[in-house]
């Protein structure tokens, strides 16, 4: 039975595996039970794929789905550190770093006749869902474009609301970040933020800096051109201090000084932009050279598990050559 498992499902030696196979059914899918600590026992159930051609036994399941769980169930226990994946998603290739431009909050609110703030509040819920999914599926870094340098030109009321939303979000979730071992990093020109928010950001970054399970990078008051310019400013200070010769400045030196160097994986493998817009809007310009771009039609508050799955499946079908 174990030999018929997907080769991507790694089972450690001397471990036991729980399986619920259904024989003679094409397009078998194995689904790991989620929300279980790696050290606990996991039960894997095989379910027929939704698009598979039905066999005689599968046709029976259409009227009697409960029977598939009782019929010929063999149990082998196992423990595994492998993250639980959704149906149809392969273990490899999985992006290590996903970047998201969270666009469409205002349109979402407008379509529903709601105030703009409702759109942003709904957007926060989508972000929480996405963080949970990333943790569940083994994605190591998520960068979100929360507030662009250009957004400062929006109406003052809206900007103030966004700042207060950020402040509330950080305060409410700090404990959760610590508990879930999530590291928070913030990139962008934080000197433009209200003082209380700036201090809060410094505090949460410092408090979570040793967390290693997952990293959430929030881009606030950020732009790709700003990132490059501030990298040059930092190099200039090193030149002034005599640490570097002006002629020694190279691409790799610039890369080391970019704000995204706060992570082990500074280059996103996948960029998702919601709301159907086809631009990167001055986001991580230097870092996105070989990043796979996925433009989703969903507005950000509507971006959930199904939409994220679609983006990941699209990523897994692509052939990345990195320009070679």
């Amino acid at each position, binding site marked *: 039975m174990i030999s018929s498992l997907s080769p991507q499902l790694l089972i450690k030696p001397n471990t036991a595996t729980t399986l619920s196979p259904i024989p003679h059914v094409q397009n078998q899918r194995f689904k790991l039970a989620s929300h279980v600590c790696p050290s606990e026992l996991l039960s894997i159930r095989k379910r027929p794929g939704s698009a598979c051609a039905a066999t005689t036994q599968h046709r029976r399941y259409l009227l009697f789905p409960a029977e598939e769980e009782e019929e010929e169930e063999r149990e082998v226990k196992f423990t595994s550190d492998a993250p639980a994946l959704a149906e149809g998603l392969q273990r490899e290739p999985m992006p290590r770093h996903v970047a998201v431009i969270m666009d469409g909050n205002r349109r979402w609110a407008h379509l529903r006749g709601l105030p703009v703030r409702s759109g942003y509040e709904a957007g926060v819920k989508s972000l929480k869902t996405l963080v949970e999914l990333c943790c569940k599926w083994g994605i190591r870094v998520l960068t979100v474009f929360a507030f662009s340098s250009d957004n400062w030109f929006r109406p003052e009321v809206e900007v103030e609301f966004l700042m207060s939303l950020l402040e509330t979000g950080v305060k409410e979730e700090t404990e959760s970040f610590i508990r879930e071992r999530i590291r928070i990093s913030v990139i962008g020109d934080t000197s433009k933020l209200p003082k209380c928010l700036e201090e809060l950001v410094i505090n949460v970054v410092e408090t979570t800096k040793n967390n290693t399970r997952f990293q959430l990078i929030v881009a606030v008051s950020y732009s790709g051109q700003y990132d*490059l310019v501030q990298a*040059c*400013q930092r190099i*200039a200070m090193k030149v002034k201090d005599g640490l570097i010769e002006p002629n020694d400045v190279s691409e790799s030196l610039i890369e080391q000084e970019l704000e995204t160097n706060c992570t082990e994986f500074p280059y996103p493998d996948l960029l998702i932009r919601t709301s159907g817009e086809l631009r990167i809007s001055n986001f991580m*310009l*230097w870092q996105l050279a070989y990043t796979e771009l996925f433009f989703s039609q969903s507005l950000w508050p509507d971006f959930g598990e199904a939409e994220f799955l679609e983006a990941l499946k699209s990523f897994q079908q692509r052939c990345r*050559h990195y320009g070679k």
Partner: protein
Amino acid sequence: MQKVYSWACQIGNLGLWIIWLLIHFAVDLWYFALHIACAIESYLISSGILKRYKALDIDKLRYLAIVIESEEAYHIPAVIQLLQWLVDIGVKHVCLYDAEGILKKSKESILGKLNNATLFEEAGESNLLLDHKHITLEFASFPDGKEAVAKAANLLFMKYVKLGGSGKIQEEKIFTEAHMSEALRAVGCKGPEPDLLFVYGPVRCHLGFPAWRIRYTEIV
């Protein structure tokens, strides 16, 4: 009784399965027909029989960039054909990019095969406005991206070091986005920000197209 019930279930399942197959077939047929219609339309437009592009309003498209994956960039006749179509549509300024610089090396042959095509660097504004079928071409490759930013930064660093003795210079005044743009022009990266960027190849990334220039570029 149980036998009858079992038979009824099997017939019911069979019926549902047949309905599912029919729906699946109908959807497949629909998409197949759409695909055929698109293929026929593309053929008619490519062969010049159907000139739907005449109704296109491309005034908004001031600068088009085309990123071609390196393997595809070797197909120069296909690139020339694409540029010919763009001339027919009325596109006036195009930047051709491939990471390895294959198109840059074939610059002369591409310009030679197209009528009324000039290099972007050599074209003057007065020439561009007179001729409707004129096109300017810019050729770019990977060194025009990150390497160019590093060169531009070096230019600013040299200026910074020269003026550093005065004690009045701050890094923020020398290194600004405007100064970086100016420095990029000084090192030869004079092209404007494209309005639209087409990517040809199996990938969906811009393969290192000069990042400074694609802040708000639509990518297709």
